[in-house]
């Protein structure tokens, strides 16, 4: 547990260490299906004991990349190394890699026990050793009492755990998970996410997870690789991806965001001012931006970082008058949709700190929107 990525005391950030060698290295991999480029010149380094999430919309190439790691697809170009060994031409049955399939792909004619033992039997382990490891693994996923059942006699959540056990029992160097939680209902999914993290920490196996669910990626992963049209658009920790997106696409894909298109009117190393047609006053950002003055840039501000007040804020920047158009009460927080003078609709979330609603801003009220100079993220693409 010492090197837990969840433990804030002992930071697990091998990617910041210049001497650390990636455990899995994807080197300029391209995969074409006919004319269609599914994966386009992707390079990635994934470190030991990471939970790395490949995140993207369907058809972005994340599953193809995963299948190339498993050996079911051969890259059109590029190489794949696992633990320093070139795996590109190794068939799936000789790779030290196991996969948990989205459909789980449990063998319907075998019991839970036989499913889990299947991989070990292929390695020709002794019977006693197989039995011992299967029992251990079934205990770990809390399925000991279901060992003699067939897959069709299990619930969805139980099948998911059999699939996990079957993939982990061979102690792979790398575990690939294809949409591991997609088939579960919401409550079970949340619970399973944490269970998955616990198991990963107990066994110390490197995980690569494919998902289209950003929430899943945020909670599970040590780092996220966001994919779009076969390319990796950004790699970073969940915080980096959320707070420092490198493009409009990334900021919009993860969470919701308000984007203001504008021009740089002041460009200093320590601050910038952006003028936007949607706002009366400029946006002041308290850090420099690498872009030419006068160039079009986009300032992205997260809904929870926009504040509302009835009094006019002090200062000349970072505020604008707005009208409340709609409120969605979610219990823990409320989502406000406000309209600016330009007609642009802005989304603001506010935690419901107090129980009484008397003081809350309500429909059709005129308010001032403001934000901290550190809140906007300026992107140039």
């Amino acid at each position: 547990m010492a090197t837990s990525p969840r433990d804030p005391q002992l930071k697990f950030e091998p990617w910041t260490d210049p001497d650390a060698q990636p455990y899995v290295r994807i080197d300029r991999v391209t995969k074409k299906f006919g004319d269609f480029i599914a994966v386009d010149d992707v390079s990635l380094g994934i470190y030991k004991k990471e939970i790395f999430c490949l995140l993207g919309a369907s058809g972005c190439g994340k599953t193809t990349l995963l299948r190339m790691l498993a050996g079911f697809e051969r890259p059109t170009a590029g190489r794949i190394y696992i633990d320093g060994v070139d795996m590109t031409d190794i068939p799936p049955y000789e790779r030290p890699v196991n996969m948990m399939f989205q459909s789980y792909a449990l063998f319907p004619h075998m019991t839970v026990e036989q499913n889990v033992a299947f991989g070990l039997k292929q390695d020709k382990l002794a019977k006693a050793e197989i039995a011992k490891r299967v029992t251990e693994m079934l205990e770990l996923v809390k399925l000991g009492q279901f060992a003699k059942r067939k897959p069709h006699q299990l619930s969805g959540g139980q099948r998911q755990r059999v699939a996990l056990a079957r993939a982990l029992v061979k102690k792979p160097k790398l575990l690939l998970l294809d949409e591991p939680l997609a088939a579960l209902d919401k409550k079970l999914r949340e619970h399973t996410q944490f269970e998955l993290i616990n198991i990963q920490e107990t066994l110390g196996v490197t995980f690569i997870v494919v998902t289209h669910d950003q929430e899943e990626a945020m909670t599970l992963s040590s780092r996220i690789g966001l994919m779009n049209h076969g390319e990796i658009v950004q790699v970073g920790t969940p915080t980096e991806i959320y707070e420092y997106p490198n493009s409009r696409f990334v900021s919009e894909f993860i969470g919701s965001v308000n984007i203001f298109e504008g021009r740089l009117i002041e460009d200093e190393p320590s601050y910038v001012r952006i003028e936007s047609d949607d706002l009366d006053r400029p946006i002041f950002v308290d850090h420099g931006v690498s872009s030419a003055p006068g160039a079009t840039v986009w300032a992205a501000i997260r809904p929870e970082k926009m504040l509302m007040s009835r009094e006019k804020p002090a200062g000349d920047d970072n505020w604008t008058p707005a009208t409340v158009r709609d409120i969605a009460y979610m219990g823990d927080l409320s989502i406000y949709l406000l309209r600016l003078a330009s007609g642009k609709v802005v989304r603001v979330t506010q935690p419901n700190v107090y129980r009484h609603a008397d003081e809350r801003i309500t429909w059709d009220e005129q308010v001032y929107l403001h934000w901290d100079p550190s809140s906007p993220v300026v992107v140039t693409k």
Partner: protein
Amino acid sequence: MIARVLHRLGLDGRTAVIAVPYLWLLMFFLVPFVIVLKISFSDAQISMPPYQPLLHWVSEKALQIQLNFGNFAFLVEDNLYWKAYLNSIWVAGVSTLLCLLIGYPMAYAIARSQSSTRNVLLLLVILPFWTSFLLRVYAWIGILKNNGLINNTLMALGVIDQPIQMLQTDFAVYVGIVYSYLPFMILPLYANLEKLDLTLLEAAADLGCRPWKSFLKVTLPLSLPGIIAGCLLVFIPAVGEFVIPALLGDPGMLMIGKVLWTEFFNNRDWPVASAVAIALLLFLVIPIMFFQRAQDAEAGGGSHR
């Protein structure tokens, strides 16, 4: 209107729909079976029909039933019947095995082919049914006989100087049965193999299984219902097959279908012919019933998904 009539009869639409096939089976399977069963217990006599009735009045008030088990005893006593049964089962068994060995790879290839070519291939499997079964067996005579297609070709090529005797041999019977019943093996196998989830094979490979072993461990056991269905569809009609051995086989070849024919038409001994038929049915049905029971027991709790 129909609904009201049915209602008055105490039937709802559902019962009526189910009743139709049951009536059909009753009329054309159960009733003839009972008739054959009845004849098998009667005595042969020269009359029209050529057997004594089972029931007859001994006096005004007494109806006597007379069951003659002699026909069945005769089947056991005369080893002709035993030999014919065993030979038929042997021929049918070998033919079924050959059909499986040929049909499985074909069904597998069709199931794995691209969906555009798959329908064409399936059509080719069914295509022979457009021609009468009898004509197709006759066609084999033309191919196999001493101055037939194969012998003439081989002689013209100088491979042989004497024609090879193929017609009227066991070989010809096997050729005829395998050829005729192969589609009945391929179709259920195809229906099964086509449903196989290919990610299961990927999962097997992922867990360290080489392709050939994946086939043995995953594809083959999962296709077992298809194998069984195909084998039954070939084996059962092949046991009672009459036309193919009569046309292609050695006249001396003992097959139960032919024995039945001889008893019925040449000897005009309907009771013995019926007893042969009933015994054949028992031979086939009892193992199948046991097999079904075993399968149900193994499925345990139903195979609902």
